């Protein structure tokens, strides 16, 4: 730690980390075997972090995003000090509060009260400091009289609330959080976000690792996207999430044929020949304006059923859906669906469709037909710490009448 750096700042320079790639547990037996002359002693390694450099100033709130195995947790462990890099330099200045796994420090045979003191000690608080915060911690964790019960009789939610509460009242210079929010109910998650927002306001720096993009977007101002251990993007959180999402879609949705670039549809008994999204004049759709969906479906026989068209942000859960009872002739049928005011903000979205005839046989399974870009108005600002369920943007008129 160098004194000239401000508390709450982090410097990371050219960080490299590797793991042994033979994952089998290494026992004495193996050591003896490899000691034989001529035995292959060369270890195989794989890089999990490659040439990572970034800097955090006090008060920064950074979301670390990336697919599973991209090195997020490894990076966080190095910053916490439980793991060491192979090469590079890093400096973490100030008191670190790390929440790598909130239940790790709790002991089942002890009561909640005893655990608060123990865990506080583990996180670097003195007995006196824990006593000062004791009531706040218990209140925040919503434990009430369970506080004198053994922790092994707690529900998993209670244990994790206890863990988070102790750490949240540490008042660290830097808070490192790894997926801690995933366990609690939505009420408690909201309280955690509130608490993080309070800490941010007090000048605490935050590094948050989470797959919950809404949570990342709501708390963090900056986003760092790691891909296979390489820093891809370090920019404002919305752009970082946007680029990450785009990559996710391209990587995991295989409906785009790689050679032709055409959409590949999942086989149903009805074939999707064409699915196009455009504005009224055939150009790029615009937020708040008319959206036209043109479909061509090929059915083996005359059939009646419900046709659903939905718009999603990439996942299977749509932001909105429109459904119409539809009759398909044998052969190809053209269908046009017009939405007069597209309620989504500018960005990249996906069209999903489904057809269900109700007889369980003739149908199109719920599937994406491809991405499309929306132009025009972006999303309005959200208060920090507030999660937006989806990127819906509607028009509003504002006035300030004189007679209040």
């Amino acid at each position, binding site marked *: 730690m160098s004194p000239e750096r401000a508390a709450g700042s982090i410097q990371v320079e050219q960080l490299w980390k590797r793991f*042994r790639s033979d994952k089998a547990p290494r026992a004495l037996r193996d050591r003896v075997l490899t000691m034989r002359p001529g035995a292959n002693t060369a270890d195989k390694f794989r890089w999990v972090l490659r040439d990572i450099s970034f800097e955090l100033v006090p008060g920064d709130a950074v979301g670390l995003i990336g697919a599973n195995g991209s090195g997020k947790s490894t990076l966080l462990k190095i910053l916490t000090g439980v793991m060491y890099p192979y090469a590079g330099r890093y400096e973490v200045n100030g008191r670190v509060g790390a929440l790598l796994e909130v239940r*790790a420090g709790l002991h089942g045979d002890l009561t909640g009260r005893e655990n608060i*003191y123990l865990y506080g000690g583990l996180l670097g608080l003195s007995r006196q400091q824990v006593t000062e915060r004791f009531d706040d911690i218990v209140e925040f964790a919503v434990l009430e009289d369970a506080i004198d019960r053994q922790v092994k009789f707690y529900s998993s939610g209670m244990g994790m609330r206890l863990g988070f509460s102790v750490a949240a009242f540490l008042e660290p210079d830097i808070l490192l959080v790894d997926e801690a929010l995933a366990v609690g109910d939505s009420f408690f998650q909201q309280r955690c976000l509130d608490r993080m927002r309070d800490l941010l306001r007090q000048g605490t720096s935050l590094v948050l690792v989470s797959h919950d993009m809404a949570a990342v977007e709501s708390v963090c101002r900056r986003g760092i996207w790691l891909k296979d251990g390489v820093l891809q993007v370090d920019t404002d959180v919305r752009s970082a999430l946007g680029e990450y999402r785009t990559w996710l879609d391209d990587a995991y949705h295989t409906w785009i044929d790689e050679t032709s670039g055409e959409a590949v549809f999942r086989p149903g008994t009805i074939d999707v020949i064409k699915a196009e999204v455009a504005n009224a004049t055939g150009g790029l759709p615009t937020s708040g304006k008319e959206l036209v969906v043109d479909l061509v479906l090929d059915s083996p026989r005359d059939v009646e059923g419900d046709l659903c068209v939905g718009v999603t942000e990439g996942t299977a859960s749509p932001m909105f859906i429109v459904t119409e009872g539809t009759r398909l002739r044998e052969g190809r049928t053209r269908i046009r669906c017009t939405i007069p005011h597209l309620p989504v903000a500018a960005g990249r979205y996906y069209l999903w469709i489904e057809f269900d005839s109700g007889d369980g046989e003739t149908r199109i399974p719920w599937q994406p037909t491809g991405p499309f870009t929306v132009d025009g108005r972006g999303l309005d600002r959200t208060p920090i710490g507030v999660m937006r369920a989806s990127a819906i943007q509607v028009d509003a008129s504002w006035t300030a009448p004189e007679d209040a």
Partner: protein
Amino acid sequence: MTSPAPTPAIPDGPPESIRFKRRNPVLRAPGDIWRARSLVRSLAERELRALYKQAALGVAWAVLTPISLMLVLTIVFQRVANVPTGGVPYSIFAYVGLVSWNFFSGSVTSGGMSLVNQMPLVNKLNCPREVFPLSSIAVTAVNSIIASFVLVILFVINGFAPKITSPVAIIPLIVQIAFTVAITLLVSCTTVYLRDLRHALPIILQLGLFATPIAYGLEQIPEQWRPLYSIVNPLGPIIDSYRETILYGRMPNWYLLGLGTLSTLVLLIGGLKLFRRLDMGFADVA
């Protein structure tokens, strides 16, 4: 439509010049551990609370183990082998050795496994990792102190009083603590990498119980071998010094105790060094 960012050109590996190195790991160790002393206390307290909350007999276990061993040794060695004790009741003679041996072997057993058993905590908590074996030693020390009260009872039953030189026993005690810490550190950090040690350790300690002058005296070892023996097994001169000062009213054999202290110091520094080196990979292998 935005295309995914192109992967920037990254070399296959880092240049050797930027290899990560810890600054003065061994020199910093004592300070790091001292700053984390409250953590040692918390962990030991947690262990003790949990230990005595669950066991029906509670504290009694700390006393029952050495007493039962003492009874066995008394029957086997005194009645059958008739070990000379120089006029000291055999039960007292054996118990002094047993309490100190139990402190050592208990520490090495629980401390040696402390990192492996608490891996989730070791992996999530930024602290000098020495606190885990050290807190195990602290727990064993508390048990040993409880077990020592039996010695008082034995003194009363046998109508035997500890000698005036007893306070000198603090010197071998310090050496024993250092030796116990050294071995516990060595065992705990290697066990993380070589899990087989878990099975080998009880056997080695079982042998140690008989290779150490517990049931018999140090003078049973041929005179010319005693210096070498003291270097290999510092517990020999340590236990002998306890007996000399508490039971016989004599000063310890400074020469042998000094040799034991010397090898203890070497082991302690080596233990810290190895621990600090292996420590850097704990989170990688667990």
